[in-house]
C-alpha cells in the first residue's frame, strides 16, 4: 500500500516555477540510505550532471554589450536538461555483507532518474538485496532570477540569487548564488561590426536539502566560460536577435548523508565530478520595447533547453 506524501512543493505555484522538477531532497536521502560508496555515486550521477548543466545554462541572450552607460536587465530563467536511457540505470556492486550469486550480475539498477521499481538481486544461502527505485524523471528543470548590470568599457556583471528556507518540509533549504561577467569583443571591431561578439565567465554555487547531521545534503559548484555571438535583426523597439555560444563547462556536486546499508548509521561523503564538456548553444531572443522573451538549446554532454523572459532598461 502506498503512503501519500503531499510534497510541500505545492506551496505556491510561483515557488514551483523556481523549484521545478526537483524531487523532495528528503526522499532522495531516504533512497540513498540503502547505499554506500560506489552504488550511491551510480545512483546520483545523472542528477549531479543535470545540476551542473543547468547551472551553466541561460547565462546570456545577446552578445551586444554597450561600451559605456548604465543598463539593467532582470529576467527569470528556466533551464531544463533531458535524461537519456543511459541515465536511467547503472551497474551496481554488492553492499557490505551481501554476497550475490553472480557478482557481475548486479546490472540495470535504477538511478535517481530511473524506474520507480526496486530491483531484487539474489544472493547466496537464500539471501537477497533490494536496490531502491528512482523517481522516473524525463527531465530536470531549474528556475532562477537573474540580474545583469553594465556597462563599463564594454563589460557587464551578472548576478543570480535565490534562497528559500522550507526546512519544515521534505525539500529542506535551498540557496543559489551565481556571479559572472561578460566583455564585448565587437567593440574593438569598428563602428559597424558584422555581428556582436563577447566573452563571458559565470560561477555558481548551489545548496539543497538538509541531512541528518544538519548540513547540506547536496552542494554543487559550476563554472562556464566561453565566447558568444549574436546579430540584431530589426530596428527600433522591436527586433529579433539570434545568438550562439561556445563554452567550456565544469561542475561538481558534493553529497553528505547517513547510510544504513550496513545496519548501523554510517556517514557517507560523495564527491561527484561531472566530466568537463564543451557546449554549443543556439538560441533566439525577441525584444519588444523593454520586454524580452528568449529560448535556446544547448548541445553538450547532457543537452538542454532554456527559456526565459525579462525586462531591460
Amino acid at each position, binding site marked *: 500500500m502506498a*503512503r501519500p506524501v503531499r510534497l510541500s*512543493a505545492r506551496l505556491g505555484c*510561483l515557488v514551483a516555477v523556481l523549484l521545478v522538477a526537483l524531487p523532495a531532497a528528503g*526522499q532522495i536521502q531516504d533512497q540513498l540510505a540503502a547505499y554506500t560508496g560506489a552504488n550511491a555515486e551510480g545512483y546520483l550521477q545523472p542528477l549531479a550532471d543535470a545540476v551542473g548543466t543547468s547551472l551553466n545554462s541561460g547565462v546570456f541572450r545577446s552578445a551586444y554589450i554597450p561600451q559605456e552607460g548604465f543598463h539593467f536587465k532582470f529576467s527569470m530563467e528556466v533551464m531544463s536538461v533531458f535524461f537519456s536511457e543511459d541515465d536511467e540505470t547503472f551497474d551496481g556492486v554488492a553492499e557490505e555483507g551481501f*554476497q550475490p550469486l553472480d557478482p557481475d550480475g548486479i546490472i540495470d539498477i535504477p538511478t535517481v532518474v530511473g524506474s520507480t521499481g526496486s530491483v531484487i538481486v539474489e544472493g547466496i544461502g537464500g539471501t537477497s538485496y533490494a536496490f531502491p*527505485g528512482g523517481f522516473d524523471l524525463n527531465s530536470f528543470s531549474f528556475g532562477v532570477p537573474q540580474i545583469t548590470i553594465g556597462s563599463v568599457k564594454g563589460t557587464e556583471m551578472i548576478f543570480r540569487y535565490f534562497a528559500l528556507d522550507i526546512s519544515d518540509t521534505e525539500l529542506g533549504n535551498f540557496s543559489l548564488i551565481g556571479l559572472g561577467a561578460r566583455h564585448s569583443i565587437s567593440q574593438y571591431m569598428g563602428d559597424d561590426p558584422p555581428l556582436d561578439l563577447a566573452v563571458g565567465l559565470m560561477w555558481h554555487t548551489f545548496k539543497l536539502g538538509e541531512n541528518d547531521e544538519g548540513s547540506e545534503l547536496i552542494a554543487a559548484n559550476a563554472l562556464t566560460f566561453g565566447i558568444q555571438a549574436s546579430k540584431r535583426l530589426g530596428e527600433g523597439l522591436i527586433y529579433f536577435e539570434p545568438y550562439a555560444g561556445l563554452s567550456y563547462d565544469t561542475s561538481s556536486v558534493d553529497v553528505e548523508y547517513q547510510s544504513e546499508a550496513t545496519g548501523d548509521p554510517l556517514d557517507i561523503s560523495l564527491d561527484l565530478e561531472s566530466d568537463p564538456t564543451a557546449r554549443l548553444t543556439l538560441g533566439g531572443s525577441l525584444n519588444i520595447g523593454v520586454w524580452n522573451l528568449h529560448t535556446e538549446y544547448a548541445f553538450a554532454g547532457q543537452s538542454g533547453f532554456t527559456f526565459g523572459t525579462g525586462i531591460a532598461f
Partner: protein
Amino acid sequence: MRKTLTAVLLLALGCALLAGTGCLLEEKVIEIVLSQATCVEFQEREDNESFTNPETLDYADRIDEILDDNDLVRADIDSMVVSSITYEVTYFPPPQGAHDDWELTGEVWIKRNDAVVDSAVIVDLTTQSILDALDTPTPADLNAAGVAILNDAINDYISGMNPVLVFRLDTTTGDVDPDPSPADSLIFDWKACIKLQLVSELELETFEIF
C-alpha cells in the same frame, strides 16, 4: 514608467499562467528500501566442549519496532528480504588456561516457536576463532535451509502472523579447541544480527516541465 509597469505585470502574468497550468505536478509511486538489522544476543558459560544454548527472538515484535521507528506499519510493507547475517563476539575475558583463544566448530540452528516447522541449520561455524570475532562483525557462512525459515517467517509476518524464532549455538556435533573444563571455562558473549531490507511504496509528486 508606464512601459515599466506594463512589462512587470506581463512578466508576473506569464509566470502565473505557466505555473497555473495544473502546476505540471505528476503523482508517482516510488519503491523505497529501508535497511535495518535485528540482533539476538547469547551468553556462553561452558565447562565442556558440547553445549547448546537456545535464545528466543520475538521476530514480529522486533520488526514492529523497526517499523514504528520509521513511521511505518505492517500494512505498508510490500516485501522484506534478508540481505545478510553477521555474528560478533561482544565480550571475551582472557581464558584461565595457558592459551589466549578458543576455536569453535559447530552450527547455529533456527526453529519457529509459533509454528510447526522443522528446525534447520542457518549458520555453519568452522574453526571460528573467538578472538578474531571480538568486536568484529563477521559475515556468516549461511545455510539455505535455515535462511528459508527466516524468509518464511517474514512472509508470515507480512500476512499477519507473529513469528517467534529460536536460535541455538550447537557444538555437540562439532568441536571446541582447547576443551573447556571447570578449571578453564569457555566464557564469551556474542550476537547474531540479521540484516533486513523492507520495501515499501511512497506516493510522491514531482514537478516536470517536460
